[in-house]
């Protein structure tokens, strides 16, 4: 796959450290995501991938270190303001609005994007601009036929698609995908993979994934995280042939991957 990757760094973590009590969950991590990149972050369970995501998105505050988005320091910014600047994530476990329909959910998200999130004096869904964007998202994530179904009543695969649709509705510049195909049954998996592959090329993506097929198909850059620290970084070929990585990681997950499948 060819993606336009240039040298501009869109998201960068610099000497990031996070300690919980005496445990160093993140140890001096440096990570650069280039514009348009398909960057995969891999590592065995407990390697600190989720902690790193939480640090990047602002759910956790780093003990020390610095995070830059498009050249600006965002280390002190609260989570919702990072979203406004274009740093958006999906969740490993679906985080949806169960009582709303996909149509309502996406309308809320897009309204938020168009600066109408706090408008209280008119009914939601009046603006053509917002509706058009919602229609486009519903189409792109194949949710049009279930747009009026309550989210809690949708199939798991559809809910997974909605999970990603919500993130993309936030108009991300950098998208953090946390195990997008986790737990999706085989029948619905291809649809999801196709949607992931079809994500806009100008959105830079950091993918956290256990599924090695997806990682090697998708990524053009990989970072391996072990025990909270970066073990190595490189192209998929370099990583695949790195004896160090093989030793600590690949053997282990291949077994894991098989048990999952």
């Amino acid at each position: 796959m060819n993606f336009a990757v240039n040298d501009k760094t869109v998201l960068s973590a610099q000497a990031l450290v996070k300690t919980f009590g005496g445990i160093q969950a993140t140890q001096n991590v440096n990570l650069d995501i280039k514009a348009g990149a398909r960057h995969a972050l891999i590592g065995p369970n407990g390697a600190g991938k989720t902690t790193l995501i939480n640090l990047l998105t602002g759910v956790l505050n780093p003990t020390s270190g610095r995070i830059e988005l498009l050249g600006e320091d965002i280390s002190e910014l609260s989570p919702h303001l990072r979203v406004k600047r274009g740093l958006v994530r999906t969740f490993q476990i679906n985080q949806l609005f169960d009582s709303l329909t996909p149509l309502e959910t996406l309308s809320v998200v897009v309204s938020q994007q168009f600066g109408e999130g706090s408008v209280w004096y008119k009914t939601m869904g009046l603006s053509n601009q917002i509706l058009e964007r919602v229609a486009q998202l519903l189409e792109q994530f194949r949710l049009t036929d279930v747009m009026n179904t309550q989210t809690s009543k949708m199939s798991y695969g559809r809910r997974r698609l909605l999970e990603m649709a919500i993130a993309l509705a936030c108009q991300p510049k950098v998208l953090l995908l946390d195990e997008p195909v986790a737990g999706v049954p085989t029948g619905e998996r291809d649809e999801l993979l196709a949607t992931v592959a079809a994500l806009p090329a100008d959105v830079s993506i950091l993918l956290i994934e256990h599924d090695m097929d997806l990682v090697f198909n998708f990524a053009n850059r990989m970072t391996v995280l072990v025990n909270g620290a970066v073990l190595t970084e490189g192209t998929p070929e370099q990583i695949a042939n790195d004896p160090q990585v093989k030793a600590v990681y690949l053997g282990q997950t291949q077994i894991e991957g098989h048990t999952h499948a």
Partner: protein
Amino acid sequence: MMGEQKNSQLNKIQAPQAQLELMRISLQRGSKIKAQEIIFWVLALTTPLLLPSHAMMISEIAITALFALSLDLVLGYSGIVSLGHAAFFGSGVYSAALFAKYFLIDPTLGLLVCATVAGLLGFICSFTVLRGSDLTRLMVTLGVALIMLELANQMDWLTGGSDGLQGVLMGPVLGQFNFDLQGRTAAWYSLVVALVVFCFVRMLVNSSWGYTLRVIRDNRLRAMAIGVPVSKILISVYTFAACVAGLAGGLLAQTTGFASLDVFGFDRSADLMLMLVIGGVGWLYGGIAGAIIFKILQSELSAVTPQYWMFWIGLLLIVLVSVGREKIKGWFTREYLVSLLTASTNKSGGAR
């Protein structure tokens, strides 16, 4: 072949427009005014004429419904539990009574004052409910109401303490309508204020802002991750709900000409939550239905068994919860409410 191509092109141009229209209809389903609603409010506004002897009761129901609406915004729409909503109600009662006693007897100005006072209190308290679990919120809200109760008890030079604040005289509503002994003006006054606030709240919950409340209730973590300023929204809804509760309290003080410590009581907060459970949370008529059912049951049952009427309320609650909220909601969303009202109308009509 050519025709087909042309057709599909036409479809491509037209389908989105039709699609947008469909989406718009779906999104606005909740905000369309339904016939039952109009019937309900017309009936409600005519009850002081139909049941003049129950005018004070009608006024009290309207006030309680308004109070329940306030809790529904916080509990049903935003998912913040509160066992101390009486704090705002009570502060409305006392500020309206004191304002009338020491400053001006105009009811409309009085309402503005009590909404402002309760709103200020709500704003301050909103910071205590932003963090923590449901349990800590229950305790904190309960604590605030207890503090207010003891403050009112202690400051007897101002509030009359446990004797209550008596002899509150009110001027005519809008300078036109004097409060009569029967309570008809009071009933209409309360009903009209309740209707105006209801319409406003109805607009709020169907707006983007209103949907943001549901989004926060359903999943606060994700709400943050889509860029919702969660704290800001919760502070604003809590403050606004406190204003509404204060309005309800103000109405009570103005229509009864009296303020007593029990307006801060735990019973009042707990009863309110019962009403919401009975009527159903998260839909605007839930609080109203709950208030009507609770108040009518209270008055009917306490006439039959003055000491043990709570037994029947308890039984009703257990039945309601066992049968399941969804099913019960179904009974109330339809004409059930209207038929309930007409039934009680017929009954007393026959008695007369």
